């Protein structure tokens, strides 16, 4: 005899208990601490902070632990937490020119003021599994630089700007819209696009950027400069009448210098693409700069050739992995009501076809 499925609540509770047990894994193995994740899986922490749009390494590490290492799930946890936080105010814009750089490279000039600083990069590591890490993981201390870094590290694009070879990017003081507090509206200005790209899925952004390199709105990008380091966050305190430093952030910034033959409206000059991301994530920052540049076709008077990376509506509506994964995964929820409606329709249509063509049915 048929009994309707009941007990959804019990099933959910049991599933959560099982999940917690699986998260812990073999109890004979020491449990991961938040500090271990924060210190030793730093790039995962950085990605969760960037796409979660919340700079808090401890919370990001907690989210990674809770999500069993599923970074999109961890980003989701951070986003959902972030929305509940009250807003006390807005910081001043950070100055990346005053960044204390761990890494700073330019692909366009062999040397430049401030120098090329390789920093802690995977570049030039041979991708050979290091079995020593499996054994003890102890590492010798890295050598330290003898001389201190200059306080200001000038931007490479500034040198090109002096010669008038690159488009102007004047500073402006308009408050940018806040994607997390206002609904996305198309057409979106560059500030809003950059904001969306900064929290966009790394894989999606990488794929789009790669597509521009392969000819879908190719924009001939050079990495004018890539820098990673810490910047101070300052906030104006009205009661004090001046700004105070409230903390510091690690950021990755990428400025691309893009070839440009000129258009109906603009002279031949180099143009810019820009990427800025929380933490150390140069793959994301470079991708962001390439996609930013592709999305700027209209303001630079270029043709829209129908490439995905040029299409702001396409990019902005599909770049958010929390929106995408939620909608994608919702198709596993019950849909039997709509499926039933489709079943009835298909049955009806089939019966009409077979009624009309009984001979064909017999022949089959």
């Amino acid at each position, binding site marked *: 005899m048929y009994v309707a499925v009941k007990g959804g609540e019990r099933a959910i509770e049991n599933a959560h208990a099982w999940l917690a047990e699986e998260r812990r894994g073999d109890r004979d193995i020491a449990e991961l601490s938040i500090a271990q994740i924060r210190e030793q899986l730093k790039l995962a922490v950085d990605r969760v902070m960037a796409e979660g749009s919340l700079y808090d390494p401890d919370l990001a590490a907690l989210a990674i632990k809770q999500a069993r290492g599923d970074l999109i799930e961890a980003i989701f946890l951070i986003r959902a937490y972030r929305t509940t936080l009250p807003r006390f105010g807005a910081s001043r814009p950070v100055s990346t020119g005053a960044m204390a750089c761990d890494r700073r490279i330019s692909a366009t000039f062999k040397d430049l003021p401030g120098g090329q600083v390789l920093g802690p990069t995977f570049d030039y590591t041979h991708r050979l599994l290091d079995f020593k890490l499996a054994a003890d993981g102890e590492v010798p201390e890295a050598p330290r630089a003898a001389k201190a870094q200059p306080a200001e590290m000038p931007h490479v694009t500034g040198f090109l700007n002096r010669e008038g070879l690159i488009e102007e990017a004047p500073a402006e003081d308009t408050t940018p819209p806040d994607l997390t507090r206002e609904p996305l509206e198309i057409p979106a200005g560059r500030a809003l696009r950059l904001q969306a790209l900064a929290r966009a899925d790394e894989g999606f952004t990488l794929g789009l950027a790669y597509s521009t390199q392969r000819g879908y709105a190719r924009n001939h990008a050079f990495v004018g400069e890539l820098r990673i380091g810490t910047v101070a966050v300052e906030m104006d305190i009205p009661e004090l009448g001046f700004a105070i430093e409230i903390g510091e952030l690690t950021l990755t910034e990428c400025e691309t210098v893009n070839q440009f033959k000129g258009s109906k409206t603009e002279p031949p000059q180099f143009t810019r693409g820009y990427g800025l991301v929380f933490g150390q994530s140069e793959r994301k920052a470079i991708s962001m700069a390439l996609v930013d540049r592709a999305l700027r076709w209209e303001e630079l008077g270029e043709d829209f050739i129908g490439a995905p990376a040029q299409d702001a509506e396409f990019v902005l509506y599909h770049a958010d992995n929390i929106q995408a994964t939620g909608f994608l995964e919702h198709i596993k929820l019950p849909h039997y009501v709509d499926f039933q*409606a489709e079943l009835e329709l298909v049955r009806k249509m089939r019966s009409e076809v077979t009624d009309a063509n009984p001979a064909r049915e017999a022949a089959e």
Partner: protein
Amino acid sequence: MNDYNFAYLDEQTKRMIRRAILKGLAIPGYQVPFASREMPMPYGWGTGGVQVSAAILTPGDTFKVIDQGADDTTNAVSIRKFFERTAGVATTEHTGEATVIQTRHRIPETPLTEDQILVFQVPIPEPLRFLEPRESETRKMHSLEEYGLMHVKLYEDISRHGHIATSYAYPVRVEGRYVMDPSPIPKFDNPKLDRSPAIQLFGAGREQRIYAIPPYTRVVSLDFEDHPFEASKADHPCDLCGAEDSYLDEVIIDDAGNRMFVCSDSDYCASRQAQGHRGRLSPEVA
């Protein structure tokens, strides 16, 4: 759960949603953009409906949640529990006792009253989306009342299949103006939208849209004179309660592929059985 505000959302967010609801009621069927928040459940799982419910619930409400017509489907259980914890509201499975009903994919069979609010979860609020993927274009089409594309699509169905091949999320016209997606309810439920005494609110979280149908508003399913709209359902009575007038789920009951049909509205079916109604496969009364 005391760390969170009443009904989870902060007051500023609720005000923003409340303003959108009022504009939605003032412009029936028009999709009001709103700054949907990330909720502690995934997009696509009812975040729009949850935000609307959070903005309208008061401590005195009795809340009911259904998914596919049933109160005990896992996502309905999960959302009901969320509001029990964050808003402390009373909950019920009985349509008649509820003051606010959040639903996914169904309208209850028991007629709603003036004292009730129905909140729909909406995945894709734009009825023209599958004909035109660009929001910038569809917004223009709504503003110009340019719905020719939709009629062409429906008419193509008729010429190809003999009738309109849309069985759920069947588009409606609200008060003679906006074409609206009623959410993926089966078209069987469409007539219930028309002149309902209840307030009907629609929330699409991921797509950041809220829309509304005030009570007693004309809601007409799109059709043609020679092919009038028809609210259809499986041509069976319910095998548990014998109802002839309710929307049915089809259940495969054995390896031979035998089927039974049961009301998708679990409360409706249970109430009828409690009143003594019996269907073909009803359990024997103990």
